[in-house]
């Protein structure tokens, strides 16, 4: 990702059914990030895989395709115990969460 795009906001269209749930959903992703970081230290790849799996499963339905994409990478790199890949994805996820701008459907 270039420097230029990083500063730009990512517009996310949240479907009507998810609007009220989004704040809690995003809070749960912040928790996920902390838990992945903790698990990385313990080399607990199983937990990371599970967290990636659930991000993958729930991102799109809330309108956050980026979370589903990154969840998929986190899950598969945890499976292959690829620490650097996990770290990269985690950084991307933080960046993504910082840049999103919610647009109602």
């Amino acid at each position: 990702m270039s420097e230029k795009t990083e500063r730009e906001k990512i517009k996310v269209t949240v479907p009507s059914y998810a609007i009220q749930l989004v704040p809690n959903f995003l809070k749960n992703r912040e928790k996920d990030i902390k838990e992945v970081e903790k698990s990385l230290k313990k080399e607990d790849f199983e937990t990371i895989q599970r967290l990636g799996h659930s991000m993958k499963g729930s991102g799109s339905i809330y309108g956050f395709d980026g979370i589903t994409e990154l969840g998929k990478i986190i899950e598969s790199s945890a499976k292959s115990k690829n620490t650097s890949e996990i770290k990269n994805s985690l950084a991307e996820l933080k960046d993504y969460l910082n840049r999103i701008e919610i647009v109602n459907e």
Partner: protein
Amino acid sequence: MDILIVDDSEDQLLVLKSILNEKGYESIHLVSSAEEAFDFLGLKDKKKKKGEIDLILMDVIMPKTNGIEACERIKRENALKDTPIIMITANREEAQLQAAFQAGAMDYITKPINITELLARIRSALRLKMETDSRKERERELTEMAERLDAANKKLTRMSYLDGLTGVPNRRYFEEFFAREWKNAIRLNSPLSLIMFDIDCFKAYNDTYGHLNGDDCLKKIASSLENALKRPRDFLCRYGGEEFIAVLPDTDKKGALSVAKRFLEKTDKLKIVHKNSTVSKNVTISVGVAAINPDKKSKPTSFIGEVDKALYEAKQSGRNCIKEGFTT
């Protein structure tokens, strides 16, 4: 329509509930593990009131009991075997889908969930559930109706063979069962007897005491003399008016005469006052008896004619007595 969603992800549970609520499905129940689902469905404690559920959405990958094991467990429950289960799975791996269907799942949807697909599958599962429910209801109604019809038929058959006033078998019963005993007697080469009797001066009784008392008199005599028959195949029928006939299978004339005597004695014991009788101060009967060892050449009608003639003779010779018919 009640839908139960089983998923270990809170985000997934809440968003699915919200989607379904938005589409008009109001009764959505959320549980976050298979164990909670078992509890909700009343699988753990049979005494606990169960949540009535029309559809279950079940995540496959869950800690502890996974969705496939949970599906299998739920389907083992007789009351839940027609409750559709849709599995929510992250992959389309052949082996996993096969396991899900084998466990009794009706359908599956893959994550990330496509909402149009989700709603279409839910609609079709609920339609199936409703059809199954109404079919079961119809089947239950049909069985119930068949049972009622059967009972009514049995009652009608019983009634069609009984005399409405006295409660003893009627003429129709006589025709059918006398014909049967006649054949039996030929086949077994055994004797068969008939006793025909009627109430003496019954017209005078009716004229004196009225028809209601006349009916009462018929009832008393019918029930008392029916009780005078001891053997299970013997039966007494109301032949018409104040005339009755008793069929005594495997009974010769000697036996029939002793039953006829018992009839006279029983009638006497009833002591039904009849002041205008030409015979006695109480009601009496006249009795004809006939016995036969029928063979293929014998005619049942002439045998009945014989006992009828014997009864006529008893009337001619002063009533309140027994006369025998001609014996073959």
